[in-house]
């Protein structure tokens, strides 16, 4: 069975800041971590994995359909940049589910965010759409996030039978991502 994973990455303004050793900023650290996973999954191991990508700030849009082409993943990663104000994770989930509804196999969305949700479709509502499309949500939050955001994250992962993690350092981010992807791919 093919395991389809879409990385849904927060590119809102707050990701421009660093956090502990997540430097020079959170977005670059996330990019490096996703690249590490992509190399592991697509180049080093011949696991039946396809990786896709979408981003969100005040809006959300897709960057990559699930692919085994590391070159395309690298191209998408190189395009990541801070997009602007606002954070609409629910819109990001909907975009990711749309990418995944056309593929066969297991479907997971790994969202990496630093919170500050303030726009678009509520995350817990978007999670219902994900669940109905057999998509599991896994959410990694960076640093301390607001209680209201934490509540939405918990509701979203509960709805989709997913899981959430909080990370504060680069090592934690890398190890959690590795653990998640290894669990998905068995």
């Amino acid at each position, binding site marked *: 069975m093919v395991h389809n994973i879409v990385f849904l990455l927060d590119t809102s303004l707050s990701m421009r800041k660093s956090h502990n050793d997540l430097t020079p900023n959170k977005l670059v650290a996330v990019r490096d971590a996703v690249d590490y996973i992509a190399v592991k999954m697509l180049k080093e191991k011949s696991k039946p994995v396809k990786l*896709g990508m979408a981003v969100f700030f005040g*809006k959300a*849009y*897709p*960057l*990559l*359909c699930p*692919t085994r*082409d590391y070159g*395309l993943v690298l*191209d*998408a990663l190189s*395009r990541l940049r801070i*997009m*602007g104000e606002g954070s609409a994770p629910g819109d990001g989930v909907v975009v990711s589910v*749309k990418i995944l509804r*056309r593929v066969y196999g297991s479907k997971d969305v790994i969202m990496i965010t630093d919170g500050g949700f303030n726009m678009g479709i509520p995350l817990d509502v978007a999670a219902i759409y994900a669940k109905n499309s057999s998509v599991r949500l896994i959410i990694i939050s960076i640093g301390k996030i607001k209680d209201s955001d934490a509540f939405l994250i918990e509701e979203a992962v509960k709805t989709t039978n997913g899981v959430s993690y909080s990370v504060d350092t680069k090592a934690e981010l890398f190890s959690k991502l590795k653990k998640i992807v290894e669990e998905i791919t068995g």
Partner: protein
Amino acid sequence: MIDIVLVLEWTKSSDLELTMEFMNTVYALASKNKFVRIGIILFGKEPIPLLDLGEPDVFSDTINVIRNIPLLQHPAEPSLAITEAVDMLEDLSEPISTRRIIFTVASFSSRPKIRLEDALLYLRSVGNLNHYLFTTSNRRPRWISNDVAREINILRKGAIAKYLRKII
């Protein structure tokens, strides 16, 4: 079967007469072929799907309606509209037996928030799609990379059929 989605900028920056001529030309060519289906997405700041893939006759009715649609909010975001077109094709057409085409007609007069290159990468990853870019402006945009700029065709009044005959 050929499935075509027209992605058309409908703002104060676009040349609406040229855009209408483009639509009419597509209709004239498509109506001669019963295996062509056409969809339409207008866009300004947000994309608005107007017509799902359907027969050219329905398309003809829609062209008349479009004339009365007020201009959409500026600045235009072509990338969002292109990804909407991909959604339409992915949901409604069969990639194996169908030639799938997106025509984007825009002024490209201002730098969008979401880069055009991002949408083009997404198109590449989807596969089985041909995408053609047209501008209603007199020149190619300067804010775009040279590689993409070279792909943009400048529309000239009266010369649209020449472009499209090669494709449809």
